């Protein structure tokens, strides 16, 4: 087979695989986040390859009515808007909230579900914490990039609470049980699910706010959006939406009222108050820059303290590996290999969530420990090879002159090793500065996380991304400069 025919065969095979569901019937790619879980989208517990949930059924209903075959595309919840604009899928639905910024930057459908933002607290606190105002000085959790998060940010200013943003809707509630946060604000669908999963929680019935779920499409795809609207309205009329929500125990009378409003020919989407979407670039930057700057300070402090920990621990490990007995060396080598051989993200999760039943570390401390312990492994390797690069002859000379081993290390070996280690160490510090963005998974809002929040809120990555990059560079460039200066001053002949 020639190369051309092989490539041709491959292309045919790939296109067959991509369009496999039904020949001749076009595909409707729908984007959602299966991590969002039931009742929206989740892997069927009895068949993990299959997705179930009310959003899955609605997507299939829309596809069927449009004469197409639904095909799921997995997109991270926070990236759904960006992916819609990029054209990664035709329609997106995954508990996507109706917010003005979304209506402006994308083509949004009519709302198909109404939810209430509700406050969940520990049972013991049900009388103490009834509203956000009662939670002054307390930590209140929610899912990032949601209306609830906007409400919490407003409550931060109004009532002095601390808003804590999570990337999923499971850990806010489990951390509430553990006492890491004192309340969770999320929609009633998620709150209901969490109440079933966790004992000892209480959800206040009063809605802090009302919100709606919508279907999104790329802005230039308004025609498809209009078709979706027709399908949704038909489904509201003929009861098929109601049937879907009833199957998922999510039907209530709020929906009937919503459908009545949406089916009214005079219905227009509520515009609401949009924080920033309509403002000019400069005002947007001015509004968000202080919070980015604060987040950059968090990143810097986190990185510096984690690096300090890594340097101290790494030095101890390196010395243990060079001078220690075989058992010590084996233990330390194992530590280094495990820390280097597994993802730092996994280590962070284990320290924060995995150890929660033993020790409940605050997020910032867990982040510090995770990064410090991980980088200690890398630092120790640098120091070990630097120690071993100091000529053995110098150590012989020191021994004959009467220096003890510790003195030889302190006065002769370590100072030279440090000079050799300086360049790779700087490298690692810059890498740590950027890796520190992983700790946003533990609810620490550092620079990258704040940038994501910024981008989600204004529906664009251009300005937030640029500012974020500038701030990272502002931190890493001086560091590189300083390291080069030190290296020149202490230049070693062996380098």
């Amino acid at each position, binding site marked *: 087979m020639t190369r051309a025919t092989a490539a041709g065969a491959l292309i045919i095979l790939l296109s067959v695989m991509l369009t496999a569901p039904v020949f001749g019937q076009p595909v409707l790619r729908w984007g959602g986040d299966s991590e969002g879980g039931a009742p929206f989208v989740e892997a069927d517990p009895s068949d993990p390859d299959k997705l179930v949930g009310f959003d899955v059924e609605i997507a299939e209903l829309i596809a069927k009515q449009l004469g197409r075959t639904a095909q799921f595309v997995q997109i991270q919840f926070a990236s759904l808007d960006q992916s819609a604009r990029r054209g990664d899928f035709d329609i997106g639905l995954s508990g996507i909230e109706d917010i003005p910024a979304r209506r402006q930057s994308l083509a949004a459908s009519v709302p198909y579900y109404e939810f209430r933002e509700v406050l969940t607290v520990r049972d013991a606190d049900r009388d103490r914490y009834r509203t956000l105002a009662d939670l002054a000085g307390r930590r209140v959790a929610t899912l990032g990039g949601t209306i609830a998060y906007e409400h919490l940010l407003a409550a931060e200013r109004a009532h002095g609470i601390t808003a804590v943003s999570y990337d999923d809707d499971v850990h806010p509630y489990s951390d509430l049980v553990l006492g890491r946060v004192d309340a969770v604000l999320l929609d009633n669908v998620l709150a209901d699910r969490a109440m079933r999963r966790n004992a000892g929680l209480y959800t206040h019935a009063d809605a802090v706010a009302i919100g709606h779920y919508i279907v999104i499409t790329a802005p230039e795809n308004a025609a498809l959006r209009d078709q979706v609207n027709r399908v949704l309205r038909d489904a509201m009329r003929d009861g098929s939406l109601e049937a879907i929500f009833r199957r998922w125990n999510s039907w209530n009378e709020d929906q009937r009222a919503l459908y009545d409003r949406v089916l009214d020919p005079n219905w227009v989407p509520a515009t609401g108050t949009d924080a920033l979407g309509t403002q000019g670039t400069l005002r947007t930057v001015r509004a968000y820059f202080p919070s980015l700057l604060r987040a950059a300070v968090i990143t810097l402090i986190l990185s510096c303290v984690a690096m300090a920990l890594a340097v101290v621990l790494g030095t101890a490990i390196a010395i243990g590996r060079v001078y220690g007995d075989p058992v010590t060396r084996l233990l330390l080598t194992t530590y280094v290999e495990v820390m280097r051989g597994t993802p730092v993200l996994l280590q962070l999760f284990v320290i924060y969530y995995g150890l929660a039943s033993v020790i409940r570390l605050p997020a910032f401390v867990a982040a510090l420990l995770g990064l410090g312990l991980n980088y200690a492994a890398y630092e120790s390797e640098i120091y070990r090879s630097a120690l071993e690069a100091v*000529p053995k*002859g*110098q150590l*012989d*000379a*020191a*021994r*004959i*002159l*009467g*220096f003890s081993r510790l*003195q030889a290390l302190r*006065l*002769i070996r370590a*100072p*030279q090793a440090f*000079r050799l280690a300086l360049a790779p160490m700087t490298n690692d510090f810059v890498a740590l500065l950027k890796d520190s963005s992983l700790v946003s998974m533990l609810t620490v809002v550092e620079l990258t996380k704040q940038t994501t929040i910024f981008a989600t809120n204004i529906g664009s990555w251009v300005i937030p991304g640029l500012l974020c990059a500038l701030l990272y560079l502002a931190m890493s460039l001086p560091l590189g400069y300083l390291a080069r200066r030190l290296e020149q001053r*202490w230049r*070693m*002949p*062996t380098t």
Partner: protein
Amino acid sequence: MSTALTARALRMTRGSRDILRGVDLFAAKGELVALMGLSGSGKTTILRVIAGLETPDSGDVIAEKVGMVFQFHYLFEHLCAIDNVALAPTHVHRVSLSEARTRAQALLDQLGVGHRARALPRELSGGEAQRVAIARALAVDPPLLLLDEPTASLDPARRNDLGESLKKLAGSGRALVMTSHDDDFVREFATRVVVLANGEVVEEGDPHEVLTSPKHPATRELLQVEKARW
């Protein structure tokens, strides 16, 4: 003449190789003893055993405090010349830094490298580095000074300077033991030569006698090899 070094019946095996096969070596104060022998004859190993860097399988070493100058000097690269010399007195012998520096400067002056006191090892020439290394070894005032191939990297003028310096050190009551390939140097400056072959002493005595009319075939071979090299 009092003895600074007595080594008896030194034996050492590494793997299947006999490195030392019953070596006896003595050095009295005022002596400059030259160890000669082809590469692999065990010269450097003897110095390392005397210095305590290697442990022989059997045999005794009775030696006073030892100073050693390595072939490649092994100066502490992060310290300038004077600090290389002053480091052991300040940290091992608890001499005050100013006093140690004063004495280090005097030693460097004495060896002709006083003007290089503030230079880092990488800025020194081979000859300068060697003299700093000698000063470093002398700073703790050892009665016995070991030198491994001190002439190896020196031009003829520097070789002569070194010889004079070593003669002076021996004259001031130290015992010096050096390894060398340079029979002219040994003839001129050593007070006694010890010829080694395959880990054994094969011949020893006055350098002029031994090197002018060698009795042992290994000594003759050694001299031929050295001649061929020059």
